[in-house]
């Protein structure tokens, strides 16, 4: 419910949220993530989905799990930065594609965004 | 599991009965209290007379109470909203019905004992001693007349009485279960079932009378005169078997309807 888009699969959205939090250093102090259930309750989503998202992030090298203890953020967050970068680029590509269908080329879109934003 | 069911059933029924037993006891105390002021005046006679009247009425009401409560409990616990919980407990239908029946019978017996104690309390004095003596005399007399048969008669009679109580309770259980099958008015259907059973019982009775009128009873009567003890045993045991059969039938009806055709709203 909170901050999540119901029209898109939830799992990637949770990956994105966690990725941003990791890069922003939300979990720096302990490096340990809250329990799956807590995370799920906080976002109001299915615990199995959160589990899947954590598994994905582990595969991507952002997290590692310790048996019987939980999930930890990897010391080196450069991987997280990369993943986040990829996500951002992907979104921009999608955005460009949408704008293209509305008659703006990527360059024109950049110009347009700058002008519009300064207003 | 049955033990726990029993505990909760006792709790549910006795929480209603304990005040009633207290009333019985309280009335006895009040009765004794009134007797303290015994005198030969009009006022006292009126007061004590009406007290006796109310006492008897209340006594009868108390004896009927466990019966009414047990039947209401059966209906409410199984077929009202509570039924959603009752029927999702890991307990089978036999356990549900039997525990309710046994608790109802125990409660009825306890109430009867309480009623007797109450009467003894209120009348305690020369009269009680006289009544005690009379009972003792009857007991001795019966032992002398019936000899070794006496304890058996007693046991048979007690079993028969409890069984009759059980049959009556099971009859109401069956009526309630039949009433639940109705889509519209379940209470009305239950009352209808009761009168249905009553009509069937009358019909069977009439049939026996008609058949009985055709039979030559003389040889049987002669046998009965020759073997008086056996005759009493036979009729008592016959009664027990008949009651068990009828009770079994009512039990079967309730069990079948609950386990196969449960239909909570």
């Amino acid at each position, binding site marked *: 419910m909170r901050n999540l888009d119901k029209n898109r699969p939830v799992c990637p959205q949770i990956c994105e949220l966690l990725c941003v939090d990791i890069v922003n250093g939300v979990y720096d102090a302990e490096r340990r993530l809250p329990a799956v*259930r807590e995370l799920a309750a906080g976002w109001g989503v299915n615990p199995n989905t959160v589990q899947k998202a954590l598994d994905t992030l582990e595969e991507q090298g952002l997290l590692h799990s310790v048996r019987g203890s939980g999930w930890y953020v990897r010391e080196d967050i450069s991987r997280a930065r990369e993943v986040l970068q990829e996500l951002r680029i992907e979104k921009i590509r999608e955005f460009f594609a949408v704008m293209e269908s509305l008659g703006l080329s990527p360059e024109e879109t950049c110009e347009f965004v700058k002008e519009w934003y300064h207003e | 599991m049955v033990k726990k069911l029993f505990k909760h059933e006792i709790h549910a029924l006795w929480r209603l009965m304990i005040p009633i037993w207290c009333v019985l006891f309280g009335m006895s105390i009040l009765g004794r209290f009134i007797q303290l002021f015994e005198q030969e005046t009009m006022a006292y006679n009126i007061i004590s007379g009406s007290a006796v009247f109310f006492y008897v009425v209340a006594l009868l009401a108390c004896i009927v109470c466990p019966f009414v409560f047990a039947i209401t409990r059966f209906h409410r616990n199984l077929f009202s909203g509570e039924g959603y919980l009752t029927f999702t407990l890991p307990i089978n239908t036999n356990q549900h019905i039997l525990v309710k029946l046994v608790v109802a019978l125990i409660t009825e017996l306890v109430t009867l004992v309480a009623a007797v104690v109450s009467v003894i309390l209120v009348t305690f004095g020369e009269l009680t001693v006289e009544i005690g003596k009379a009972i003792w005399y009857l007991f001795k007399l019966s032992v002398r007349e019936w000899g070794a048969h006496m304890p058996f008669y007693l046991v048979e009679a007690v079993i028969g009485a409890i069984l009759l109580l059980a049959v009556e309770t099971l009859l109401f259980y069956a009526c309630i279960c039949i009433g639940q099958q109705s889509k519209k008015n379940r209470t009305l259907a239950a009352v209808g079932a009761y009168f249905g059973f009553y009509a069937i019982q009358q019909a069977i009775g009439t049939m026996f009378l008609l058949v009985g009128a055709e039979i030559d009873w003389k040889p049987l009567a002669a046998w009965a005169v020759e073997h008086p003890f056996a005759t009493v045993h036979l009729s008592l045991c016959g009664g027990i078997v008949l009651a068990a059969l009828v009770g079994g039938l009512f039990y079967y009806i309730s069990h079948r309807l609950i386990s196969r055709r449960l239909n909570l709203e």
Partner: protein
Amino acid sequence: MSELLRCENLTKQYGKTAALNNISFTLESGKIVGLLGPNGSGKTTFIKILNGLLTPTSGAVYIEGERPGPSTKAKVAYLPDNVYLNAWMTVEQIVAYFADFYADFSTERAFEMLNRLGISPKQKLKALSKGNKEKVCLILVMSRQAKLYVLDEPIAGVDPAARDYVISTIINNYNPEASVLISTHLISDIEQVLDEVLFIRDGHLVLKKSVEDIRAEEGKSVDELFREVFKW
């Protein structure tokens, strides 16, 4: 993932109308499943059969291979769609009642949740507000370590705050070996919690699908899909 629930040609007939019509499906353990359909589509009938409160006209339902009976009732925790508590008991007594009959019930967990809501154990059930009564019912059900939780319309007729409470209680007490079956017609509030949905209409099963698949393949929320399927 082991099979938890199996329905075989389940049919329930009321006179001539079929409340459930030849429904067959299986559910695995470890899932939160939404049983979705408009009012009167057969959701409650199905749930009652599952709990042994109704007997099917034909077909059967199996919970871990067994038909509904005392042994399945020991592992299914059921929240009916109406308040069923006997009014004369206190909160404490109903907790003891559950603890007596359900081996998987945790008294400690129940009191912890009651405490968090500020419901006193000494209170009579009939003295509770309607909202608190519903919460007590939910707490009793969720304090069990059941194999299957069956919640019939847990969020119908409750205010949004209570709705959040219900949802977070379900998530917080969920364990990955169990499954939760939630019936509702208010989909948007609960769809994010679900793994899978079953759509039923007029007693027919019309769709059984993972919600992530719905979002990925259709690009729309379960609620939108529901509105499309049940358009009239």
